[in-house]
């Protein structure tokens, strides 16, 4: 069932031009709606990463490499994973609740009687929007996280790495390959969030209680699948 839904969703990608308003609405909800929280989270993650790692490196006098460590961590791991978890909590749950409510209150049946395929009308725009919005959010989070790390590295006396040195090491360490690997993860995680949200929503039954359970289930399932996918993607792209 979950694979069938994925296949149908991908099949309906060709219908995207006629669903542009819906896709833009989802992009706005997912992208613009998540942007401030993602920025705040990335900024603090970058700062904590620099603070923890920088003070330890300083014990051995190797704190100059802090820029490379923060950059690689944000690009390859923390940026994609933290953003995907945030989107799963904020957007995946909302997708499951919205589609679940539509299922419970017969709106999905109404779509079918109007000869409108619910997968094309509901799942495809959400999936496409997630595939586009999550990588964009990840790029944004990486930039903010790196800036946060640079700020802490330069102003913390125990680390004391100038911004120029921080960014010099960062640029040296990160190539197109690292960025590609990070964005590949972002695309896969975005797909997982949308697919799980829609699948759980379509499977919802049992009134308000069922909708509540669907919301929780969507978040938990997306979190687990993101972590599992992260492991395998890391293995594959090592």
């Amino acid at each position, binding site marked *: 069932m979950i694979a069938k839904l994925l296949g149908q969703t991908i099949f309906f990608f060709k219908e995207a031009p006629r669903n542009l308003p819906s896709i833009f609405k989802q992009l706005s909800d997912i992208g613009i709606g998540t942007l401030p929280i993602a920025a705040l989270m990335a900024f603090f993650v970058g700062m904590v990463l620099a603070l923890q790692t920088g003070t330890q490196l300083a014990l051995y006098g190797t704190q100059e490499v802090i820029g490379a460590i923060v950059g690689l961590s944000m690009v390859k791991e923390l940026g994609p994973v933290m953003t995907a978890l945030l989107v799963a909590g904020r957007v995946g749950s909302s997708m499951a609740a919205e589609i679940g409510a539509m299922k419970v209150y017969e709106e999905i049946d109404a779509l*079918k009687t*109007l*000869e409108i395929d619910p997968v094309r009308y509901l799942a495809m725009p959400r999936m496409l929007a997630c595939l586009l919005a999550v990588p964009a959010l990840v790029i944004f989070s990486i930039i903010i996280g790196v800036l946060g790390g640079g700020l802490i590295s330069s102003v913390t006396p125990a680390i004391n790495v100038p911004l120029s040195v921080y960014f010099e090491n960062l640029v040296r360490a990160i190539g197109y390959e690292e960025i590609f690997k990070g964005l590949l993860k972002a695309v896969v995680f975005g797909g997982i969030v949308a697919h799980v949200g829609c699948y759980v929503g379509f499977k919802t039954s049992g009134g308000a209680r069922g909708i509540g359970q669907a919301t929780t289930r969507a978040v938990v399932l997306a979190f687990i699948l993101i972590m599992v996918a992260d492991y395998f993607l890391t293995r594959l792209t090592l």
Partner: protein
Amino acid sequence: MATEKENGRKKENSVMDKVLHGFPGSFFDPEDQGAECSADYSEPHGVDIRIVGLNKSFGENHVLKDINLEIKAGETFSIIGPSGTGKSVLLKHIVKLEAPDSGRIYIDEHDIFAEMKRGTSRDYRYSMVFQTSALFNSLSVGENVGLWLREKRVCPEVRIRRIIRDKLRLVGLQGKEDLMTSELSGGMKKRVAIARSLAMNPDLILYDEPTAELDPVTSDELARVIMDLKKEVSLTSIIVSHDLNFAFHLSDRLAMIHDGRIIETGTPEQIRASDNPHIKKFLYTTTKGISGV
């Protein structure tokens, strides 16, 4: 009312509306008088329905037991009976939301489930008014009514807007296009659901408990809307209800369903005069008082 109409038109011409649904007319011909719908959007003609030996179980629960029924084209037919006897399940089979364990449903002598398996397209249009109205909360009243037309692209945008206005007028909701569904009362939601169904120009329209959760006055208004439609539009209507007054007033014929079986079919007069003890009990409890008290 005039102000409401003006406000509606102003909103209709807003930039966002144009972005979402396109520009209604050309620069030189703003009303686009020549805009016509495709041949797929023909006038409704009503369909014959024949149900033969229909059975459906959910687990151990045998909900529909050997249902046999004939409904003629253009007829308003009600299926009455107590709650939980399988009326709505039967309705969902007719619109293919459920598939039977055994038996067949013929619409204009086409086996609808055989056609569904073959993937052949239907040459009739059907529509259903759900018990919960099932309006889409994220859409306005006008967008709900015009959803099928816009999705199927059977008409140009200017014509779609005219159809939305016409269908809302038919159900007494002229000028309400821009309201959101959350701003509507229960009765208004039902009427919007009917307008949304009518926008398809359906040959067959099904009403699932249309008076559920409505007060008697609103039920009467809804009955008047359906009676007016009966005069204005030629289509086959099937009403599932346990509201006997409603069903008797609107229907050409009725069928009583009890414990998953059709136990009687006839005109309102024949049903009223029936000697069947289940019908007598149902009529007594729903029109006169509490059985045994």
